[in-house]
């Protein structure tokens, strides 16, 4: 491959890989910013992936290609609703948030496969007829270099993810809602004394994480595997959390970290066709994304500071 060809392949692939990570990572960020650990996003992604595929399969006949929008919407809702389990346990019942997240992941994986078995009588669904597909952005795609690089092979979910990232930044850092949600994650008692309903903000933060992780899961399933099974999500939620921490709990940082993962992953898989890289033993390429991440964190990203009250149940009047 020529250098340009390599680039034209790497960048869109990296974006593809990064898309669910961005969505889910930013979801987790909202949860953690509100003071609830986001460990459950893996499970929420699974719920989203299942819902997306289920809706896509069942309503394709009625809606044709447009069913993907319905599927994404349903995944969003399903994620948000399922995340209520975390909210109720962690916020209302003051449960340990790490436990809640781990339990939710287990629950989501089991319930979805159980449902698949119940509905379809087998362990995985068929492939959907309307997967998410790339398209060209008119005009922009004609720009030399940048066109083929960025605008000729675009997924709608990638655009959604980018919008979500920038939107999340705006919401969190420019809008009253963001100020409030962050205050609840940093110092809930201070927020409480300022008349902010801590529990409500935490519920909202968790449900945003559910909604975004749901969309992230659906977008993953509808672009990559095209079906749903117990292994569709396979740890991407954890990678998304890693992206969020890597991105220092900042939406644009998370975006950057997710893109970094995408790039590293693409290099590792597509590396076999890239001059020089192809001579590297495959195992090195396979571990590359993970090792690179650690090196990046160790080398220059430096210490990340989590929201202070993340993981701590808020109990009125307790010091």
């Amino acid at each position, binding site marked *: 491959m020529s250098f340009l060809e390599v680039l034209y392949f790497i960048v869109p692939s990296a974006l593809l890989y990064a898309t669910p990570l961005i969505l889910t990572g930013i979801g987790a960020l909202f949860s953690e910013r509100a003071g609830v650990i986001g460990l459950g996003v893996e499970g929420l992604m699974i719920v989203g992936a299942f819902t997306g595929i289920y809706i896509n399969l069942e309503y394709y006949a009625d809606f044709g290609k447009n069913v993907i929008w319905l599927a994404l919407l349903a995944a969003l809702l399903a994620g948000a609703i399922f995340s209520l*389990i975390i909210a109720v*346990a962690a916020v*209302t*019942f*003051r*449960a*340990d948030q*790490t*436990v*809640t997240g*781990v*339990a*939710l*992941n*287990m*629950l989501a*994986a*089991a*319930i979805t*496969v*159980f449902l698949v*078995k*119940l509905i379809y009588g087998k362990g995985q669904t068929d492939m959907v007829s309307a997967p998410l597909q790339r398209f060209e952005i008119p005009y922009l795609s004609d720009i030399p270099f940048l066109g083929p690089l960025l605008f000729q092979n675009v997924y709608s979910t990638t655009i959604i993810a980018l919008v979500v990232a920038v939107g999340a930044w705006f919401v969190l850092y420019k809008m009253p809602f963001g100020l409030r949600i962050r205050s609840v994650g940093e110092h809930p008692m201070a927020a409480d004394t300022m008349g902010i309903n801590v529990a409500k903000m935490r519920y909202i933060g968790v449900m945003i994480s559910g909604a975004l992780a749901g969309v992230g899961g659906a977008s993953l399933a509808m672009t990559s595997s095209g079906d749903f099974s117990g*292994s569709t999500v*396979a*740890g991407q939620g*954890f*990678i998304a*959390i*890693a992206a969020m*921490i*890597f991105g220092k709990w900042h939406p644009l940082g998370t975006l950057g970290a997710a893109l970094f993962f995408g790039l590293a992953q693409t290099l590792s898989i597509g590396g076999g066709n890239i001059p020089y890289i192809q001579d590297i*033993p*495959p*195992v090195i390429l*396979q*571990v590359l*994304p*993970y*090792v690179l*991440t*650690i090196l990046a*964190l*160790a080398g220059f990203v*430096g*210490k*990340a500071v989590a929201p202070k009250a993340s993981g701590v149940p808020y109990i009125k009047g307790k010091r």
Partner: protein
Amino acid sequence: MSNRVVNLLVPLISVVLGLLVGGIIMVVSGYDAIDGYTALWNGIFGDSYSIGNTIRQITPYILAGLAVAFAFRTGLFNIGVEGQLLMGWLAAAYVGYAIEGLPRIIHLPLALLAAAAAGAFWAFIVGFLKAKLQVHEVIASIMLNYTALYLTNAAIKSLSDGGFKTPTVLESATLRNQWLRDITDNSSLHLGIIVALIMVVVMWFILEKTTRGYELKAVGFNKNAAEYAGMNVNRNIILAMTISGVFAGLGGAMEALGTYQNASIKAAASGIGFDGIAVALLGANNPIGVFFGASLFGSLKYGSLNMPNEAGIPEEIVSIIIAVIILFVASGYILRVGLQKFGKKKEGK
């Protein structure tokens, strides 16, 4: 109601509620819940074979749970047990087959030691990165989980000349024991459970009896105060992680020397490490608690295999039940409030 009674009642009620939810789901889905639970019970306790295998299943859960719990107790979240366990698995298998001519009394401990060392090393990296370079332990361990998966796969491949599993461990390194097999009708129960139980005591001893344990806990709870008291915070973080890795690595040894007798290529993570988190939390990060948590978790998981076999019910139902139990245990606060109210009402009468 006394605190102790409440502390016992909370997990009990949680289990009952979990089973209740599971029953409801079965009935709603058109299955026979009684059949389902009979099958589950038989799967766990039905005969000596089942009991043997249930114990075998519990064994690595104990160790994975200890690994997570130990880290938690020292203020660290070890989500990397999975990777450490894989490293330990490979190391034990390798030492188990590659070193010949040793008597069992030396070879077996050596293989266990190798697993412990490998797990410890993998966790040490995380501790080191955290202590010296402020790398968040959660990302580092997630990344190292994947790294371990690919590295051990590549290593197994080259050790087996392009095959997919290492040679079987030698008789002198196996945890298998004919007598245990005989009394459990040829189940795959092995001596590993003894190792696991010893490690329960070891963890308890380290944390509750030694000066090091005192230091580790102090650093975990309040780094600043520990530093004021002249403790070396960084060294303790690294050490805590490393000890946690020892437990995880031994968990791998249980599989390598007991259950499978080799290490084979994995297409995905084993899941034991992640289950270990649940086990630790069920056990309130307390070694004895971990033992009970692992017993509950392992029994249900193993018994679930019999549900499709005997009752035709998907075994996922058991994972749902476990998750619900964990959620209830975690929400102990609300159960406590309920119990307190209930207790008061009774006293009032």
